[in-house]
């Protein structure tokens, strides 16, 4: 049973992440005052989440590519000594506009969910 709850919790977390990672990535790149590559973005999230962010860093890259393909991020490639050439991302105008909308949606959803889960948690 323990393994089952663990598995279901992980699934719940994964499903939550599916939409939220894009929002977080856009927000990180909006706040950054320089172009960032995948590894730097991953490390920023890790630092903010006290070492263990709810999303594995390997899951960030496909989302970065997706955002870039949708024109919300722009990117350029810079050669690196450490490994393959790095792709640096920055947010585009369309990305900023989208972020503002997503932020509103997120706030609305969060308040809506809080309205139920917090109240129930307090009474029971």
């Amino acid at each position, binding site marked *: 049973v323990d393994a089952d709850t663990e598995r279901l919790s992980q699934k719940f977390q*994964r499903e939550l992440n*599916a939409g939220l990672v894009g929002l977080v990535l856009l927000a990180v790149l909006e706040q950054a005052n320089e172009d960032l*590559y*995948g*590894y730097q973005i*991953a490390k920023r999230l*890790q630092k903010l989440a006290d070492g*263990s962010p709810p999303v*594995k*860093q*390997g*899951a960030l*890259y*496909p*989302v970065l*590519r*997706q955002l870039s*393909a*949708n024109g919300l991020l722009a990117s350029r490639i810079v050669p*690196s*000594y*450490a*490994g*393959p*050439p*790095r*792709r640096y991302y920055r947010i585009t105008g369309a990305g900023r506009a989208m972020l503002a909308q997503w932020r509103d949606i997120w706030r609305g959803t969060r308040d809506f969910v809080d309205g139920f889960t917090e109240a129930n948690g307090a009474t029971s």
Partner: protein
Amino acid sequence: MNDKTAPRSIEQYLAALRAALAGEDPALIQDALYDAEEYLRAEVAANPGRSESDTLELIASTYGAPEEVAAAYRTTEKQVRTALAAPPRKTPRTALGRFFSVYGDSRTWTALFYMLLALVTGIFYFTVTVTGLSLSAGLIVLIVGIPFFLLFVGFTRVLALAEGRLVEGLLGQRMPRRPLYPAKGIPILERIKQMLVDRRTWTTMFYFLLMMPLGIIYFMIATVGICVSIGLVGGSIASLLLTTGIGSGGFTLDDQSIYFGPSPIAAPFLLLAGVALLTAVMHLIRAIGRGHGTLAKHLLVARADAGG
């Protein structure tokens, strides 16, 4: 979480990731491996005090185990495919409606553009490949021959990536978005050997050589097909306008009025034939676009099980 032997080196991790993605689109696998390598090499470089195997031990909790990362790419790819796919058009119910629906399909028009462009890109690829190959062969006895060949193969890979972007954008075939990154720390002679035995090096060059005849054929099919159909339609309309007296004129040669258009009786039939031919040509263009996408995928993208 998983007690299978955790990867202890970057190569092992990438091999495990490749295995976890087995059966996926080769282009997706190439992208995933590229991203993982960027992260892992940066992580190792950021911790100079720690050995590679110690760093890799911690990777499962930060970057994710190969299986988790594979799952992330799978789900994102599925979402992207759903999100980026053009909204499913209502398939017209009648056969006639389906026949003409080809005009509403954006793939038809992008494939047409690709076919016209193929004349230019085909000649360019052919020239580059033939020049590169013959110069490599000619210079092989000199010391500059080897670096030249390496440079040439590298250039064909960049070109293959660019062509892949073109194919994905215009023909809708998923192609790699990242270059294939050569393994590090291999002596130059070994690297040349790998390039020579890599099936993809040769299929890429074959594709580039093939692109010239294909480009010419595509261009001809597109231009001749469309011109003939439009000629039929236009000629018939001109003939009908002349007979109804709405239009007037024609060509004169030595004061003799000449007229090559269809007779008024044949005109309506030729008009229909022109419309049907144009639509058939559009169907052919869309089909060629699809077929060429598959061809490009097979020749330009390494198969996942090929290793390397």
